């Protein structure tokens, strides 16, 4: 206590009042932030975002595509930049020659597609802007088959409503996962990119393939995709909110804004 008097006359300085007032306001906001009722009210607006944005744009508008002149000189790699798993590292050494992508769940014909098979499918190339939830953006060129092509080939069942991406990168013990609905899954710009800026997709960006779902924020663009699963509902998938960040931190499942 340094011998200082414990009780001093409170000084009502302007700064004190400001900081005190702000403290009161903040304390209230932090309490509200943790109140389940208020929080579910806030979370409820996510539905409003999804419905209104699809009402405005319809289901098919394309994200803006750019020219090579518009591309970021350097595309920032974010989130997982590598995968520690020994099996994955062996695939990197083999240039993914022995790797295949699993497509299963609510499909009539489950698939195991080697990288060469994905590369042999009709390709879509798009130069688009990647918008991170943090606020930054980078423009890059992506190439790969449309997800719709794989889902058609696997003959997705009518009972399927969601497409889940199971990834090789882990956060602690949990592998990364993400999901989208069929509107985004069958969108023409939704591709499984194995090429970026004219080169095979680098490990830092999610080799061998990463999802591009151009009308949503960056965390929906799953990297290191190993398995694609068609599901009727997101209940029962880890925390039930449809994605790693959605489950651990209440990030919005619909990330169109």
């Amino acid at each position, binding site marked *: 206590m340094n011998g200082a008097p414990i009780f001093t006359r409170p000084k009502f300085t302007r700064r004190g009042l400001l900081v005190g007032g702000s403290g009161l306001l*903040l304390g209230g906001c932090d309490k509200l932030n943790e109140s389940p009722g208020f929080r579910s009210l806030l979370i409820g607006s996510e539905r409003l975002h999804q419905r209104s944005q699809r009402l405005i744009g319809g289901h098919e508008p394309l994200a803006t595509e750019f020219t090579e002149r518009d591309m970021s000189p350097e595309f920032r790699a974010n989130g997982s930049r590598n995968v520690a798993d020994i099996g994955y590292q062996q695939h990197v050494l083999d240039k993914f020659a022995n790797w295949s992508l699993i497509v299963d769940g609510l499909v009539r014909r489950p698939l195991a597609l080697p990288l060469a098979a994905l590369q042999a499918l009709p390709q879509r190339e798009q130069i688009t*802007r990647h*918008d991170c939830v943090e606020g*930054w953006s980078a423009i890059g060129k992506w190439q790969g088959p449309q997800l719709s092509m794989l889902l058609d080939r696997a003959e997705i069942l009518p009972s399927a409503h969601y497409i889940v991406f199971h990834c090789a990168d882990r956060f602690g013990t949990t592998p990364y996962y993400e999901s989208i609905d069929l509107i985004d899954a069958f969108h023409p710009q939704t591709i499984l990119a194995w090429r970026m800026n004219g080169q095979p997709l680098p490990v830092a960006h999610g080799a061998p393939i990463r999802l591009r779902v151009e009308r*949503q924020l960056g965390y929906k663009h799953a990297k290191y995709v190993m398995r694609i699963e068609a599901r009727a509902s997101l209940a029962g998938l880890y925390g039930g909110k449809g994605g790693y960040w959605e489950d651990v931190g209440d990030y*919005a499942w619909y990330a*169109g*804004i």
Partner: protein
Amino acid sequence: MSEAAEAVEPKGGELVRRHRLSTRIWHWVNLVTLTVMLMSGLMIFNAHPRLYWGQYGANPDKAWLEIGAIGDAGALRIGPVTIPTTGLLGIYTDGNGEVQQHAFPGWATIPSGYDLASARLWHLAFAWLLGFGLLAYLLWSLINGHLRRDIHITSREWRPSHVWHDVKEHARLRFPKGAAALKYNVLQKLAYAGVLFGLLPLIIATGLAMSPAMDAAWPWLTAIWGGRQSARSIHFLCAFGLVAFVIVHLVMVVLAGPINEVRSMITGWYRLPKDRGE
């Protein structure tokens, strides 16, 4: 300003109806909404405290504004100018006495700790209140004549001599008395019109322009600002434009008589200031 008030000119000292219910409701809703939008917005900014011009912008690219920590000093950099801000921006000590490294300090953000997901929940939910509140208020004010009677700037008021006279009166802190105090002067009209038709629509439009789904639906909304990162920069500048407006607004309320002014915004009744000698 009701018709009756115009017919019989009220004198200084009299109680008159000043603010309509719609104005009063919108005012207090905005106090909450804009506070939440600003504070949750500052938390979102903390996730990437750099601003750019153009479509793209990330850590490898050149930022025109940046808030951060260099060693153990906080700094705000705008273009070539770096301003030390230790304790306020970049580095600060939180309520528990712990040193934190974020652009805006915890007392200015919602939530007070670093939490991007929660800040986005607050920001995007209250954005609906801000947007539709503004729309409803503008429509209602158009219908009830508030915009035409009180905000519309007449050609006489646009005259430079008139504006200059008003600037001088403000500089001397001489405010209108008696019935004249019921009318907004040209500087007030400019400030309110600038917020109603400038800053608020601009901050909503640039906010929407940052949404990737909006960009697909309405590409022009992002293009007119010169790209997503330009829209983000303008969004941030508008936020501080609104902060500047609120500061001037509060100073004017204090100078004009805070109890009378606040009462008029709560009950609608306003006591006209007396003329000298009245």
